């Protein structure tokens, strides 16, 4: 699973941090940071939820 975040799109809503706290965090400006670029398969559902919840569609998940 590959995670791509488009920082320019991020509005600091924090949805990703709530959905997948092991994978996403917010930097000093409140914008998205990927903590774990190679997440365990068990986190896949949380990551997909984070991508779905992101109000700015700044998270793209590549499942291939």
């Amino acid at each position, binding site marked *: 699973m590959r995670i791509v975040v488009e920082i320019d799109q991020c*509005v*600091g*809503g*924090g*949805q990703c*941090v*709530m*959905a997948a706290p092991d994978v996403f*965090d*917010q930097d*000093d*400006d*409140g*914008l998205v940071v990927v903590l774990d670029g190679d997440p365990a398969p068990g986190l896949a559902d949380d990551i997909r*939820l984070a991508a*779905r*919840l992101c*109000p*700015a*569609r700044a998270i793209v998940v590549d499942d291939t």
Partner: protein
Amino acid sequence: MTDLSDALPAFPMTRPTPFDPPPGYAAVRDAGGLARVRLWDGRTAWLVTNYEQVRSLLGDPRISVDRRREGFPFPTPGREALERSGKTTFVGMDPPDHTRLRRVFTKYFAVKRIEALRPVVQRIVDDLVTDLLAAGPPADFVAALAGEVPARTICHVLGMPLADRARFQALDHERNTLTTSPENVIRATNEMLAYADELITRKQREPADDLVSRLVADQLGGDTISREELVAAVRLLITAGHETTTNMIGLGIATLLRHPEQLRELRADPSLVPAAVEELLRYISIFHISPTRVVVEPIDIAGQRLEAGDGGIAAVAGANRDDAAFPDAATFDLHREARHHVAFGYGVHQCLGQPLARVELQTVVETLGRRIPSLRFAGDPDALEIREYAFLSLAALPLTWDAAEGEGR
């Protein structure tokens, strides 16, 4: 189209009960999810009621939140007067201005930064519950708790004297009442702006450990935000988390009391509280007048071409009751996956303060369950009065409990 508009349903639609969206939303949903509605000024707009279409509308860069654009739909005369008065914040701006100004504030509302406020909110709720128990049953929980938790939290976060809360509560109430005249909406807003301006001046002179002081130190004098923009934004910060959270607390408690078995589960297992709060946000969907937008470039929604200049209303309360997104959506179920609700909106304008709202709601739900387990309606739960308000709002919530619970605590 205006000549036909008399035959169209009027917006905002009324709710017969506080616990369900207007029946008109379900009718539109059954008819495909999109319908023309008539506004107070005789103009029309598209009402969008389905989950995926609401997200499409709110997330599409071809629609605008800029109230100065021709065709922007306003739910009331007061809202139009206010929005057109130019006293707007990033809430009424499109990118890139929106992005620039919102990013001034995102860091202060980061999830972990807000989580650090949990002990403060807990103390506020505990103090209020202690007072309620000491005074004894019954009590109006709108006045005694729902209004106080957000007001005291905001005073703490922004560094405002607690005594000022009555002033901003009254002004905010006036602004959000749908029947307030345009003149009074503007006057109340100007008073709040003057208050925000005074607050900023005070924090320039006497900085303290609060958000307005930090904004003054971090942002004022830089080239990202002007003083006027900061004044408007501080006005927004004072009000945005007040009436919204107040009404969610009141309606949230009422909803839980109407589902006693789930409330019992919640008391037995407080780890269910965050999920219960998401379900309350979905089920209640307090943003009654809904996010409104205007189309800039034609888009297709639910099989209909929306043309440039058309108004769009994203009925989040309808979307959150869409069975396609939330199976058996009319049922309150704290065990469901509800986190994808759109109670805070969707798109780049989604609520900035939602982590704070969550902390307040979770703290209230957990604390009441623990400290007042016998809490129940003092009157007829089917006779609660809804106010004519921008947010779904209870006029009062009379509750009672076993007086013995106040002893020894």
